[in-house]
């Protein structure tokens, strides 16, 4: 299976003063691939997420998207490249409706900046019904503050789907979810993979990762220690690498 490399990290190092968070890290994400980025606390996973989403700049090395070298200086750069980061505490506004959250910062307006509310509402309804199946949401007018953790993440994913993102970066997505919500989220990731959307699942939880990922990248002490296709490994081997390296 040779697919195009959507996102590549080339020999990336990142230091914060005397502290070296990442050393010579390289890995790639292919089109329509689900990659599990695994590692224990302090392995450098969060720094990697921040780097890919444009919050941190690498000290050395570079990123490339579609084979072209790029630098992200802020989050909107990565968003423009089609990368959407979905954080544990998702970036939604509780006091606004689902529709307004989906279109936040990217509102559909007329020439004078007035909102095309009906159109946005219809799109939101469609995205909620078709792109993501969220149990228990019956109206796009529901305030996000009234949703559960899993529902909120689903809204964030819906936003990414609607704006045609190509890579979802999910940072510890399952840590605050119930069992049922976790199941729904993982299914969502698989469904998007079917639509050629890649995902990077950054997590502690090997079992969740094993359920959906095609490939695993294990990090330890700021660098990659293992990179393996799912077919060539077992969960106990993965555990060994996370724990022992």
């Amino acid at each position, binding site marked *: 299976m040779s697919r195009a490399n959507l996102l590549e990290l080339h020999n990336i190092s990142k230091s914060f003063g005397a502290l070296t968070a990442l050393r010579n890290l390289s890995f790639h994400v292919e089109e329509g691939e689900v990659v599990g980025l695994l590692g224990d606390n302090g392995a450098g996973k969060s720094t990697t997420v921040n780097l890919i989403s444009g919050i941190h700049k690498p000290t050395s090395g570079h990123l490339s998207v579609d084979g072209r070298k790029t630098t992200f200086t802020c989050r909107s750069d990565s968003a423009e490249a089609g990368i959407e980061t979905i954080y544990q505490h998702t970036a939604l*506004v509780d*006091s606004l409706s689902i529709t*307004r959250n989906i279109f936040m*910062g990217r509102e559909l307006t007329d020439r004078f900046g*007035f*909102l095309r509310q009906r159109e946005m509402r219809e799109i939101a309804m469609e995205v909620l019904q078709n792109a993501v199946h969220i149990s228990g949401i019956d109206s796009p007018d529901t*305030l996000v503050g009234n949703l559960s953790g899993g529902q909120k993440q689903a809204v964030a994913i819906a936003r990414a789907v609607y704006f045609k993102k190509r890579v979802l970066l999910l940072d510890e997505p399952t840590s605050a979810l119930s069992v049922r919500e976790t199941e729904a989220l993982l299914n969502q990731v698989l469904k998007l993979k079917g639509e050629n959307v890649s995902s990077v699942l950054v997590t502690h939880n090997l079992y969740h990762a094993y359920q959906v990922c095609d490939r695993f990248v294990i990090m330890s002490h700021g660098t990659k220690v293992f990179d393996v296709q799912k077919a060539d490994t077992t969960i106990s081997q993965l555990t060994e690498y996370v724990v022992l390296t």
Partner: protein
Amino acid sequence: MTPILAESAAPRSRTRRQSFLGQIVAMPAGAIFLVFASLQIVCIVGALLYPDEFRYLSPQNLTILMKAIPVLGCLALGAGVLMIAGEFDLSIGSVYTFTAILMASLVEAGLSAFIAAPLGILAGLMIGMLNGQITLRFGLPSFIVTLGGLLFWRGAVLLYNGAVQVRFDPEPAFSSLFAGSLFGINAAFIWIILFVVGFHFLLHRHRFGNHVFATGGNRAAAEAIGINTGRVKLVAFAIAGGMAAMAGILATARVGSVQPGQGAGLELQAIAACVIGGLSLRGGRGSIIGIFLGVLLIHTITDVLLLLRAPGFYLDMFIATLIVLAAIFNHLIERRGLA
């Protein structure tokens, strides 16, 4: 599976049986509307039953109400937009006086009021932006920065003008535009209605309003999605300052003079109106209709107590009680919303 379904079905049927009143309360500003409507009904019935003792519906009283509401209304609209964006402005009372004195003294010096009034508004906008710049540049709580502004501009009034009143004697066209009447309705009241409608569309139907709510509701999220929250807040500060100046114009055109001490305490009344109208002190929640109903409620209660010849301290005590009750109520709603 079945027991879970049964359990989740119970609250659903309860919400479906929710009364008409319950639905109104659940709407934004619904509860305050109910309070306001009930108070109006009581007052109107009282006035019809005792037309001589309780002159609520007399033309004089209605005119007084219509003249009093716009000044606090302008202040509260500006302060409210800023509060939804997540910041406070305590200086608007002082800015209101300062810009009014500026305008009146320019007119006294021979300038046309049609030039002096926009200059007053410009001064208000700039003072608001200054508050915003200091707050944002140094990452300070706006509460502290604008507390400084309150004292500074109060002092500036005395420095610029001294503790004497300034007469305001504009051309007749200006007076009729801001203090005249149209079809028996006070001009200032028409202005405030226009502002309420304009602000409603700006805040609830325009992209800018969406950004204001996003900025106040979750600044990190708004920032992450690419909204320039600093600029949104700065514009909101400018609006608060500009509306304070607008309040100054309406008040000055009505009275025909400016007292150096007239704005004291108005900033707190404006914030009170916002809280009564359902705005959250933490930002991100509220509605323009709510703010306006808050203003109407404060003035109706004040008016009723005056008509009943209650001593002045009752006014403060009533408003105080109302603010605290409104805050408790809003807090309960917020908690339910976040649960």
